[in-house]
């Protein structure tokens, strides 16, 4: 039975369970819901959950475990062949699976019947051709042992699938029955359902952990490979970033410090632009602006967050950069000669700051708006001006949310690529001058990953090391931010 149908059956049982559970609860209470511990629908949900959740869990578990078991038993069949050919067992097993899948498809599409499959002989039939006909890629011709293994793989899978359906439906029915029988007027259905909801909430929260785990896992192996090829100390403490093409024998300098410095510098400038503008905009929108102004200006500012970053990049490259040169360049307006090219930390920072305005403004606006009116009244009643009220009462009360918004903006600044590539240049440099070109870790991750150096060279692998280092550093910054917010949190009412 295909999994989708199985799932539909389970869901249908869940719906039936809901109705039955609700009915039984009402019946046990003599038709008066006031005699129930919980609202009648909670009993329904309880039965529905008891029916579907364990069944689904079993299904997922089964789908994960069955291949493992079948693999291990089938690989026994081909292990001889593996040792003979010196090929890895894994590869042969994946071949077996592909053959089996191909046979399945062949049967489904009617190219072969089950009997014909049974009768297939690797020596006589050209199985590779046969399966290619139904769209299955095989790396090599099929050996007899592979075919045998594939056949038994199919057989075991069939048996497994049948039992899977039986067990899953049985579990659903059992769940339905048990929870239905448990349903009576004193049963704490709400608590049970809420436990279930809580479990879902916890699961949702742990997706963050899983994602982190996934990121670390998908970076760590290549990072370790990188450190095998390139000394860690030079990576962490090297003062220059200067990759070359390893095809001609090394000489790359891959120090992360200039990149980190660029990241910090550009993000800092971006925040210096975005935070005051965003914050003042938020204050104006929530405290001063009339309703129509607010309802127009806020979504408009949010458009800034939706403009693709490549536009910002071009804006930096074509408009802001030359403009800055005209002011700070050699023949510029100020005549200071601080800036020689249009691409600079300042250019990228400014433009990135513009992009980040809505991150600060919109979210802060919501938070400021949520501060109770009585706080404002209290302050205004003492003869404070509106701005004093905002600065001294409302902002402190809204601080945790605002810090959240700023952190979000900072995070975005650290992760941005296009604006940096186009606005700040590609040069890695350790310099204090904000009018010089620099680059960031993120920009280099992208460029090393999509570049022309070969993918097993340190020049490409360094992207992973950069990724994980940045990850660890931002983790540290976040822990610090959490600590700060905890310390200064003010709770109103």
């Amino acid at each position, binding site marked *: 039975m295909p999994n989708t149908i199985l799932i539909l059956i389970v869901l249908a049982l869940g719906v039936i369970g809901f109705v039955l559970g609700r009915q039984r609860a009402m019946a046990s209470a003599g038709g008066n819901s006031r005699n129930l511990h919980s609202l009648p629908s909670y009993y329904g949900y309880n039965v529905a959950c008891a029916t579907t959740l364990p069944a689904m869990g079993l299904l997922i578990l089964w789908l994960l475990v069955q291949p493992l078991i079948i693999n291990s038993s089938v690989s026994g069949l081909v292990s001889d062949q593996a040792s003979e050919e010196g090929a890895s067992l894994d590869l042969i097993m994946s071949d077996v699976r592909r053959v089996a899948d191909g046979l399945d498809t062949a049967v489904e599409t009617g190219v072969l019947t089950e009997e014909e499959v049974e009768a297939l002989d690797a020596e006589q039939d050209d199985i590779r051709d046969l399966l290619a006909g139904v769209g299955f890629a095989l790396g090599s011709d099929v050996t007899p042992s592979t075919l045998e293994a594939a056949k038994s793989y199919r057989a075991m899978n069939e048996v497994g699938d049948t039992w899977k359906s039986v067990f899953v439906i049985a579990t659903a029915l059992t769940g339905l029955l048990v929870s239905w029988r448990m349903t009576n007027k004193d049963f704490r259905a709400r608590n049970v359902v809420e436990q279930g909801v809580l479990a879902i909430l916890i699961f949702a929260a742990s997706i963050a952990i899983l994602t982190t785990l996934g990121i670390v896992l998908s970076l760590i192996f290549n990072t370790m490979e990188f450190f095998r090829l390139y000394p860690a100390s030079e990576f962490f403490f090297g003062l220059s970033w200067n990759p070359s093409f390893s095809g001609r024998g090394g000489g790359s300098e891959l120090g992360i410090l200039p990149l980190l410095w660029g990241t910090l510098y550009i993000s800092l400038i971006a925040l210096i632009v975005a935070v005051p503008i965003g914050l003042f905009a938020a204050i104006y929108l929530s405290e001063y602006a009339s309703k129509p102004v607010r309802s127009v200006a806020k979504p408009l500012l949010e458009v800034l967050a939706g403009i693709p970053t490549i536009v910002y990049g071009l804006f930096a490259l074509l408009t802001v950069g030359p403009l800055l040169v005209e002011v700070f360049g050699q023949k510029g307006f100020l005549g200071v000669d601080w800036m020689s090219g249009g691409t600079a930390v300042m250019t990228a920072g400014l433009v990135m700051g513009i992009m980040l305005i809505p991150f600060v403004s919109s979210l802060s606006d919501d938070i400021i708006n949520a501060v109770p009116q*009585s706080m404002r009244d*209290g302050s205004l009643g003492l*003869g404070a*001006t509106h701005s004093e009220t905002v600065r001294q009462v409302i902002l402190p009360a809204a601080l945790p949310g605002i810090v959240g918004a700023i952190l979000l903006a900072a995070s975005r600044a650290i992760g941005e690529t296009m604006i940096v590539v186009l606005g700040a240049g590609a040069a890695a440099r350790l310099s204090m001058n904000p009018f010089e070109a620099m680059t960031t870790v993120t920009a280099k991750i992208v460029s090393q990953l999509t570049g022309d150096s070969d993918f097993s060279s340190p020049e490409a692998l360094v992207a992973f090391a950069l990724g994980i280092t940045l990850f660890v550093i931002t983790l540290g910054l976040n822990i610090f931010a959490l600590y700060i917010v905890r310390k200064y949190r003010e709770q109103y009412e």
Partner: protein
Amino acid sequence: MEDLAYMDRQMSTEQDIKISAKNVQVYYADNHAIKDVNVDIADKTVTAFIGPSGCGKSTFLRCINRMNDTIDVCRVEGAIKIDGEDIYDKRVDPVQLRAKVGMVFQKPNPFPKSIYDNVAYGPRIHGLAKNRAELDDIVEKALRRGAIWDEVKDRLDAPGTGLSGGQQQRLCIARAVATEPQVLLMDEPCSALDPIATAQVEELIDELRQNYSVVIVTHSMQQAARVSQKTAFFHLGNLVEYDDTDKIFTNPEDERTESYISGRIG
């Protein structure tokens, strides 16, 4: 000397009009909450507003320092003058008005700051203290006047929101007197206070009366009788009767007033 001062006080009580309201109407959207109220409130007097819940006492009180400006749907008509100056005049700066006309709200609303900062907030923004020591003095004095100093003197750094209901109310009183307003509007300032604290606050009100004008909303007839010289009785948005407290409580003119005082209408 003393006699003269006394005379002066008497005179001002009877003559100087501090606040004068003419044909005040207040609407909350369509709800006509204050209907054509005319009242003159004398300087250096305590005026009590009484009336059943929902009759518009708070609304009228909030008109006097223009706190109603903050409610979108609220619309005020008519004229309110303080010291002869129309407070709804274009030229009036509500900020300055509110510095002059302080307010204690019905629901205590301490800032989410330390107790000290709650009280010091007003003096700071008005620049009443030259240095920290002076500010400390002002805060202490205000807290003492608010009858809460003893309870909080050891925890001035604790948040004001962590106080009990009555403590919060007294903190808000202290906060309001710290800025030394000329008129103090108090919306049920003793509702959450025990008798002793109430007595202390009443004492404060009496002390303030020496120099300032105090308007107090109260549901306690006894309190109104105890602290006020003048009493205004509101009913369904109308100012039914406004007269000397003695008169109102002993010999009201309007029968609604009488019914209310004797506990027959609400």
